[in-house]
């Protein structure tokens, strides 16, 4: 092998504390090194040209550049050596800037360390092999998981871009949390009026297939070629026949069913359509409450259904689809606030969540848009809003800020005044976080025009005063006094967490998630929509707390990523993947068990069982290599011998 070593000065960044010339000279003593030099700026055009020239002049078969971090310029120099005719993997970098010159000023120690790092790079390079990527076909369709506003936007944008979309929603209707809202901040425009048309577009778009009441059971495969199993849950209504006429819901005798869509603020029937604008507008039966399904006696809905759509024998159905990409848009749920025993832990009827309050405000809600107390149906005159319930609270393990509660609380205070002009609202807050466009102005309006009392402090306890009202024990930290408010209704701005079950989905998608279940993006700043699993993108609150405009924006961004991915007809894999040496494999299967990606299978090779890596699925982590006792499976570009060469260079006494 003929190796060339290029030591970069990086101006004075490296040369200031490393003797680059001496380092280059020392490299000449290393085995296989035939050429070594130092350059001012290796990554600049003249530096790259010097490398190319040297490859030609000295017939180099491998190149080591000692400069900055490979995370910075490895791709640059790989392209350089490739231009000069070498395989891009016959190249190694020694990081003598971030790991040497920038972290100490001792010239002797730094130079010695630089020489050793160059030695390690040479030792590794001597074990490197050329690697070649493979190209493979892709399926140009996308799976969108979750039909909230982010998922709807992503689905519509992909569909408009000509990509077939499969939209999976676990509830009977799309629309997500936004469909439950009355108005939206800071414009106070009607939520249903702006979301409704988009929901209709989803139903009518020729490129979108919608599976409501469905969940993703399993996903296998890799970017470009995912196989997805979707579970269509039994609704006991044949949706191809149902017209959404609603006759069944009128006649259903089981009328005391908690209304999930209304956040249990009202009752509904065992067969129902969640709300008038539901998409798909189809009835479904809640088997827990249906008399026919629980006792076998009833069957009224089947009798009255004009299209004979009711089918009490319906079972869950699994369908399989192939897609090339996945957008996760699973949104959020409220945390279980009943851990706050000091707020009654859920036993006081007039202490409700903001989402429940939203349903009270909503004209299509259980009270027809009249604000009344759940306990006695009376109109409240004094309403207390408490922010950060289940947010920014380490004592219950939730230090995160839920982000949008400040704004909707201001909105709800404004709406309360609109609905009940002689009412007074109080908001207990710690900080007002109103960073969006026109947001701060909106909270000021709530205070200045609507007379909302903002009180800076947390609430220690809520208790009924025995006269039908509630005592809220709080503090005004600006005044430095403990204060109490006697009120009729308490609305808690309950913190959010990732949608229940998000972590299970993350495991199926092989993406990471944090302790609250939010999915991890590829890079917090530069890859906010991607995940570390190629072909899987994120939209909306499933990635972290967001308001509606940000969710919509990320939905569009995810769609753009999918469209960019599908702009090519074939994809190229990364050749830094594992390979099995069948001559050494004893088919013990340990690698198959450990692979996080299911990228290794058992196959018969000349009458014997052997492990086999599926090239396009392998992500190159190397867990298999460190698991295989006899070293039969090796991760290319990080083989045992390549790593041992570095260890042995450093430790040889």
């Amino acid at each position, binding site marked *: 092998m003929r190796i060339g070593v290029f030591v970069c000065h990086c101006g004075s960044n490296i040369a200031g504390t490393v003797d680059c010339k001496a380092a280059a000279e020392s490299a000449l003593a290393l085995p296989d090194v035939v050429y070594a030099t130092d350059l001012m700026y290796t990554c600049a055009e003249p530096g790259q040209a010097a490398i190319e020239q040297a490859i030609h002049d000295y017939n180099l078969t491998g190149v080591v550049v000692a400069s900055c971090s490979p995370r910075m310029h490895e791709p640059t120099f790989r392209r350089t050596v490739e231009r000069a005719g070498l395989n891009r993997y016959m190249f190694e970098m020694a990081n003598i800037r971030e790991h040497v010159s920038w972290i100490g000023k001792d010239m002797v120690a730094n130079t010695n360390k630089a020489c050793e790092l160059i030695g390690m790079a040479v030792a590794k390079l001597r074990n490197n092999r050329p690697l070649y990527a493979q190209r493979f076909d892709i399926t140009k369709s996308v799976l969108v998981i979750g039909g909230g506003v982010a998922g709807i936007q992503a689905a519509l944008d992909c569909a408009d871009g000509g990509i077939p979309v499969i939209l999976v929603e676990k509830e009977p209707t799309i629309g997500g949390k936004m469909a439950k809202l009355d108005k939206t901040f800071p414009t106070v425009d009607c939520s249903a009026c702006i979301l409704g048309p988009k929901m209709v577009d989803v139903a009518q778009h020729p490129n979108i297939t919608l599976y409501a009441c469905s969940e993703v059971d399993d996903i296998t495969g890799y970017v470009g070629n995912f196989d997805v199993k979707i579970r269509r849950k039994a609704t006991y209504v044949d949706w191809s026949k149902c017209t959404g006429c609603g006759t069944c819901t009128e006649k259903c005798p089981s009328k005391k069913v908690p209304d999930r869509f209304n956040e249990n603020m009202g009752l509904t029937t065992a067969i129902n359509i969640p709300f008038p604008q539901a998409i798909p507008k189809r009835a479904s039966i809640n088997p827990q409450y249906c008399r026919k399904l629980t006792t076998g006696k009833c069957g009224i809905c089947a009798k009255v259904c004009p299209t004979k759509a009711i089918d009490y024998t319906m079972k869950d159905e699994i369908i399989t689809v192939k897609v090339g990409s996945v957008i996760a848009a699973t949104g959020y749920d409220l945390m279980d606030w009943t851990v706050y*025993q*000091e707020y*009654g*832990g859920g*036993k006081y009827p007039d202490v409700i969540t903001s989402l429940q309050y939203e349903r009270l405000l909503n004209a299509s809600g259980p009270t027809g848009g009249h604000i009344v107390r759940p306990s006695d149906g009376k109109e409240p005159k004094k309403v207390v809003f408490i922010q950060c319930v289940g947010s920014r609270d380490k004592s219950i393990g939730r230090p995160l800020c839920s982000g949008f509660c400040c704004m909707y609380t201001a909105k709800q205070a404004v709406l309360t005044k609109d609905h009940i002009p002689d009412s007074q609202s109080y908001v207990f807050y710690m900080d007002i976080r109103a960073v969006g466009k026109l947001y701060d102005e909106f909270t000021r309006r709530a205070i200045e025009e609507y007379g909302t009392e903002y009180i800076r402090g947390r609430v220690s*306890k809520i*208790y*009924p*005063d*025995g*006269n039908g009202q509630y005592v809220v024990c709080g503090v005004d930290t600006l005044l430095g006094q403990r204060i109490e408010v006697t009120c009729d209704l308490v609305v808690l701005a309950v913190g959010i967490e990732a949608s229940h079950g998000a972590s299970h989905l993350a495991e199926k998608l092989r993406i990471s998630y944090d302790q609250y279940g939010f999915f991890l993006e590829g890079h917090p700043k530069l890859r906010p929509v991607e995940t570390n699993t190629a072909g899987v993108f994120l939209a909306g609150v499933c990635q972290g707390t967001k308001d509606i405009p940000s969710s919509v924006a990320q939905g569009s961004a995810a769609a753009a990523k999918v469209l960019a991915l599908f702009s090519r007809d074939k994809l190229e894999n990364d050749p830094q993947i594992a390979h099995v040496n069948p001559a050494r494999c004893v088919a013990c299967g340990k690698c198959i068990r450990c692979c996080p990606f299911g990228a290794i299978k058992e196959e018969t090779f000349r009458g014997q069982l052997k492990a086999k890596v599926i090239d396009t699925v392998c992500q190159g982590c190397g867990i298999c290599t460190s698991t295989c006792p006899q070293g039969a499976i090796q991760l290319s570009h990080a083989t045992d011998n390549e790593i041992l060469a570095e260890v042995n260079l450093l430790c040889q006494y």
Partner: protein
Amino acid sequence: MNIGYYPGCSAKGSSLDYELSSAAVCRELGLVSSEITDWNCCGSTPAHAISSELSAALCTRNLMQASKQGADVVMTPCPSCLSNLLHAKERMKNPEFRKRVDELLDEPSKEDLPEATSVMQMIGRMYNTGQIAAHVKMSLAGLRIAPYYGCLMSRPADLMNFGDPENPTLMESLLAACGATDILDFPLKTECCGAASGIPHRPLSSVNSGRILELATRMEADCIAVCCPLCQMNLDLRQKQAGRQAKTRFDMPVLYYTQLMGLAFGCDEKELGLDKLIARPDKVVDKIKALNTAVREAQGGKA
């Protein structure tokens, strides 16, 4: 299990009735314990208010005395004493602290001091609902009881081990076992009554106990059931002071839960120290009797 009994100083004075009724209830249930012969004051609030080491020294001596007479566990009716004993036991795990405390003691402390718990928890641990109900001669059904624990019994939660620090329910279960049906969901059950400042700063205790008495009155409680001598004294003996502060007059009997259990077990009123209460418990006793008579008559009528 060898149970050492630590009465606490107030048992011999201001809460003689607690002591009497606890003894009666334990006797009825068959809960046997032996009083720590040579016990001393735990130091109460004043000791830990001025020095954790002094407080721990006083408590450690008690635990060591208990240990000497072979007790595996020390049981006390008083939450304040219990809190001090448990705090001491916890702090003594720190070797530096232990060394400082040992300097104050006659002999160095033992490594494994006995456990400490409340009489209430011990009853709860040893007898299930059925076993308690078996002793009931006069049901508490129909009596509106406001259960009140005070601030010490349930917190700090990890030390006192008394369930949810915001909403303990052990007293309710014991009373329910005695037939009580109308136990109020009393929202202030763990709020502080301010007793620790009763003598040096009267308004502090009057305001806080007034709030508790007021809510109990408004919720139409027949009585407040308590488990802490300090709370009892504050709510009962100082009821007039609280009334004056709130510009009203309260008439709310404040009974120890053991007195209520004792009544249910059919113990003699004197034996339960009912005569020691300032706010007369007569209407409570009368109501229990009346309700039981009514039930008996109704059953008799049917038969």
